C-alpha cells in the first residue's frame, strides 16, 4: 500500500521552487516521496487496526446475533428492534440524563467561580486554581472510595450533617435515583475545576475597557456581569457545555466504583455505558452490546448536532 505511492512521478510541488539547486533536485527523489509515508505509517497502521476497523466491525456486529458459544449469525435489525423494546435501555438512558443534568448544574457555578477567580489582583488565585482542579486529575476509582463512605447511610458524614439540621438522609448508594444523584454530585465535583479553568481563560479575552466604560456609566457589578461578562463568555460556555455533555453521556468509572459491581441497586441505577459493558463483557452478548454502542454513538452525535444548531440563538459571535 505504501510502496505503490512512491512510483508515480508526481510533480514536485514544494521541492524545486525554494531550492533552486542543481539538476538532481528536479523532480522528487525516491526517498523524497517515501518520507511522508514513513512518518505516518506507524500511527496510521495502529489507528486502522485498533480504531477504524473495530468501528466498522462493531457496526457489523450490531446486525448479528451472538450464539451461546460466541458464534454470530446475521440477524438484520433484530438487535435494534429488541433494544428499542427493552425497558433497560430507557432506564439507563433516564439515569444517564439525570446524571448529565446534575453535572451541568456545575456550569453556572463555574461561571461564577471563574469570574471571582479572575478579579484583578486577587491573591492566592494560584492556590484556588490548584485546589479546584485537584478532583479533575485524581483517579476516579480512588476518590470513589472516600465518596462511598461519605454517602454511607449509617455512618456517612453527609447523613450526619443532614441529621444536624433535622433531615434524615437516605441510604444514598443503595436507593435507586438517590444513587444516580450521588454519583452525579461526585461527577460535578470532579469536573467543576476543569470548567472553571476553561471559563477563566475565556474571561481573560474580554477587553477590560468594556468594564471601565461600564463603571463610568455607573453600572453595578451585577449589571456588568450580566451585560458584559456572560454574553462575551458564551463561546467558552458553549465549549464547556459540549465537552460536559459528551463526557457525561459516557459516565462509567464513577458509577462502577462508587456503587460497586455487586451492589443490588446497580441494575436500576446503571448508565448507558454500564448497560453496554454488562451486555458486552459480563453477559457476552456481542451483537446486542454493539447495538447499544451504536445507539450511544447516535445519541451523542444527535445531542451535539442539536447543540450546534441551538448555539446560534444564544452564543455571542463577533
Amino acid at each position, binding site marked *: 500500500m505504501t510502496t505503490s*505511492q512512491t512510483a508515480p512521478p508526481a510533480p514536485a510541488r*514544494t521541492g524545486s521552487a525554494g531550492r533552486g539547486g542543481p539538476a538532481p533536485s528536479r523532480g522528487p527523489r525516491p*526517498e523524497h516521496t517515501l*518520507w*511522508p509515508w514513513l*512518518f*505516518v505509517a506507524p*500511527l496510521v497502521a495502529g*489507528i486502522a*487496526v*485498533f480504531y477504524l476497523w*473495530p*468501528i466498522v*466491525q*462493531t457496526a457489523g*456486529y450490531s446486525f448479528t446475533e451472538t450464539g451461546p458459544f460466541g458464534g454470530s449469525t446475521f440477524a438484520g435489525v433484530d438487535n435494534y428492534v429488541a433494544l428499542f423494546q427493552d425497558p433497560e435501555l430507557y432506564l439507563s438512558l433516564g439515569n444517564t440524563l439525570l446524571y448529565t443534568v446534575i453535572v451541568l448544574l456545575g456550569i453556572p457555578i463555574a461561571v461564577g*467561580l471563574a469570574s*471571582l*477567580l479572575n478579579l*484583578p489582583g*486577587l*491573591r492566592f488565585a494560584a492556590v*484556588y*486554581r490548584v*485546589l*479546584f*482542579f*485537584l478532583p479533575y*486529575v*485524581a*483517579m*476516579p*476509582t*480512588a*476518590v470513589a*472510595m*472516600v465518596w*462511598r*463512605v*461519605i454517602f454511607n447511610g449509617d*455512618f456517612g458524614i453527609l447523613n*450526619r450533617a443532614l441529621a444536624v439540621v433535622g433531615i434524615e438522609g437516605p441510604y444514598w448508594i443503595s436507593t435507586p435515583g438517590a444513587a444516580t444523584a450521588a454519583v452525579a454530585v461526585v461527577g460535578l*465535583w470532579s469536573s467543576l475545576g*476543569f470548567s472553571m479553568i*476553561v471559563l477563566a481563560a475565556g474571561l481573560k479575552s474580554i477587553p477590560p475597557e468594556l468594564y471601565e466604560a461600564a463603571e463610568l456609566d455607573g453600572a453595578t*457589578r451585577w449589571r456588568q456581569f450580566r451585560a458584559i461578562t456572560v454574553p462575551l463568555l458564551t463561546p467558552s460556555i458553549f465549549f464547556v457545555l459540549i*465537552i460536559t455533555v*459528551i463526557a457525561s453521556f*459516557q459516565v*462509567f*468509572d464513577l458509577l*462502577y*466504583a462508587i456503587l*460497586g459491581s455487586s451492589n443490588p441497586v446497580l441494575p436500576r441505577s446503571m448508565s448507558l*455505558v454500564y448497560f453496554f*459493558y454488562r451486555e458486552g463483557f459480563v453477559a457476552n452478548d456481542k451483537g446486542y452490546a454493539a447495538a447499544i*454502542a451504536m445507539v*450511544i*454513538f447516535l445519541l451523542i*452525535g444527535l445531542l451535539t448536532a442539536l447543540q450546534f444548531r441551538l448555539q446560534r440563538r444564544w452564543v455571542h459571535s463577533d
Partner: protein
Amino acid sequence: MTDRVTHRRRGSHVVAHLVLGLGSLVMAFPFVWQLIMSLSTNAEVQSVTPVFWPSELHWENYAEVFDRMPFLQQLGNSVLVTVLRTLAQILFCTLAGYAFARMRFRGRGVLLGLVLSILMVPSQVYLLSQYQIIQSLGLLDSVGGLVLPGLFSAFGTFLMRTAFLSMPNELEEAARLDGANPFQIFWKIMLPLARPTVAVLAITTVLWSWNELLWPLVVTTYSERMPLSAGLATLIGDRTTDYPVVMAASLLAMAPVLVMFVLLQRRVIDGLASSGLK
C-alpha cells in the same frame, strides 16, 4: 476616581475569598477526609458517633495495603503501561502530526480525515473489537494487552499537527539547504520547537492512562495483572471492607499523579484546559 474603583475592587475581594475559600474547602475535603480515615481504625470509621480525628494515628494501615492486595505488582503495571503509552504516543503522534502538517503527499487529506474521524466516535464503539483483537493475539491479562490500543492516539495526532502547523518555514528551509534529510529536520529542528505541546500530550496521556478504568477492567481478570485503577475497583467487592486500608490504598494509588500535578500545576492546568480533553 481610580481610588473609588480600587476601593470597590478590594471590597469585593473579601466576598471572592470567602466564596473561593469555602469552595476550595469543599473540593479538598474528600482528600482530607480520606487521609484521616486512612489513619483511623475500622471501628472509628464506622462508629455511630462521629470521630473527626483518630485517637491514635494508625500508620500501619499503609503497611497493611501491601498484604491485602498485590499493590506493588499493580503499581508496576500502572507505571509500565503509562510509560509505554506515553513514549509511544509521543513518538507516533509527533511523527504523523509533523507529516500531516508540513509534508505534501498523496492521500494526505483522506488519511488525516480518517484519523480525525475517530475523535467523534465514543470509545464504546471500538471497545468490543479491540477486546477481540487482544484476545485473539493471546494478550489478555498482559501488559501488551493493556497498552496496545492506547499506543496510538488520534487526539495526540490532532494536537501535534496543530502545533506543527503554526511553525515558521524558515528554519526548515535553511536545514534543507544544508542537506538535512526530512527525519533530521524533524528530529533536530522541529521537534524541539514543539516541546511545549509534547509536554501537553505527555500530561494528558499520563493522566488518562493512569486513571482509566474500563479498558483494564475488560482485558484483565487476575488482580496481580491489573493496574491500580482496576485493582482498587475490584478490591471493594469484598464483603468485609476494611475502610482504613482501602483509603490508604486509594491515596497511595493517586499519589504519583497528584504529586506530578502539584509540581507542574501551571503546565497541567493550562495544558488540559487548552486541549479540552482528559
